[in-house]
């Protein structure tokens, strides 16, 4: 089976390093970007199997990237998990209602996040 491709977008180096390392060790093909605009153009340019987006990033926020992804046929069903350092209630919109498939608050267990991604990707391929 070909390695599943996952894009991670976060302006926090620690998060990128931690998630990038564990995804790599678990045999995913990882793309790391540090802002929302780069995330959106990368996801639209090449097919990915899932994405993890921080909410508070330079350029588009995570929620804004999700909105744009959902509006595009190529990425309308892409499994996306929103990451955030703030409480879910403090976000401008409820992430699941805004199109995210999952929500994880920092600090997080990378393995749990990967389990969630795996589950979302499996659900999607069963549909």
């Amino acid at each position, binding site marked *: 089976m070909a390695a599943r491709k996952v894009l991670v977008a976060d302006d926090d*180096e*620690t*998060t990128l390093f*931690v998630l990038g*390392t*564990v995804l790599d*060790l*678990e045999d995913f093909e990882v793309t790391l970007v540090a802002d929302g605009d780069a995330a959106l153009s990368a996801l639209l340019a090449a097919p990915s199997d899932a994405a993890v987006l921080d909410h508070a990033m330079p350029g588009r926020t995570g929620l804004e990237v999700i909105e744009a992804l959902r509006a595009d046929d190529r990425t309308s069903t892409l499994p996306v998990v929103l990451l955030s*350092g703030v409480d879910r209630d403090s976000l401008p919109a409820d992430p699941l209602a805004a199109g995210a498939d999952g929500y994880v608050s*920092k*600090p*997080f*267990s*990378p*393995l749990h996040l990967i389990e969630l991604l795996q589950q979302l990707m499996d659900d999607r391929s069963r549909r």
Partner: protein
Amino acid sequence: MSIQSGDDLQVMREQLLLFADDLRTMTVAERQRAQEAESALRELNGAYVSMVRTLAVVCEMKDNYTRGHLDRTYQFAIALTRRVAPELTSDVSLGYGYLLHDIGKIGVPDAVLNKPGPLDEDERRLMQLHPLNGVQLVSGIKFLGDAVHIIRSHHERWDGRGYPQGLAGDDIFLPARIFSIVDAFDAMTSNRPYRAGMPIHAALEEVDANAGTQFDPDVAAAFVKMCDELGLGDADADVGALTIVR
């Protein structure tokens, strides 16, 4: 990077601790996977050994005069390999080769195989086909690895006058050179319906006398030394004593 607030550092610290904990979990899981793989491999190797043994015993049953030959030669060959080529002892395929060396005899007619007396020329030719018959038989069995070279070359001679290829010296696969000595020694010391087995000390003198012609001189010397150290050379012990190599 900007100067981070105390809160940011606290989150980073917690994040790294979670990361470390996950790495530990992954390492433990990986270690367990490796152990499981290793035990599966051991089981598979065990299955291979039983399969090879069964094949070898089937072949031995056909040959009335070789009962016990298989076990003795196997034990001797392994012990001698440990002495002359310790780096090869981890190669399990050599054990397969020692057990299956005569598998090709399955294609030799019973009348020739069990003939009570010397063979005539036609019969000898048939008998001498057994190494290549054996190679052909096992050629499709990948896990036998280098065993095939023992099956093919255990009747080659150091001086090049053996069969089937007439290879000489170092061109003969070392474990085959080891086995040819063990095999000849066992044949000399075993009783046949038409003759009694030679005493061990006489057989050892014979091995020594043929070092450099029939046998690799270094391996022959190591074999004689091994038997001396095991106390086989000084007594008139019968072949039953040979099992002490275990």
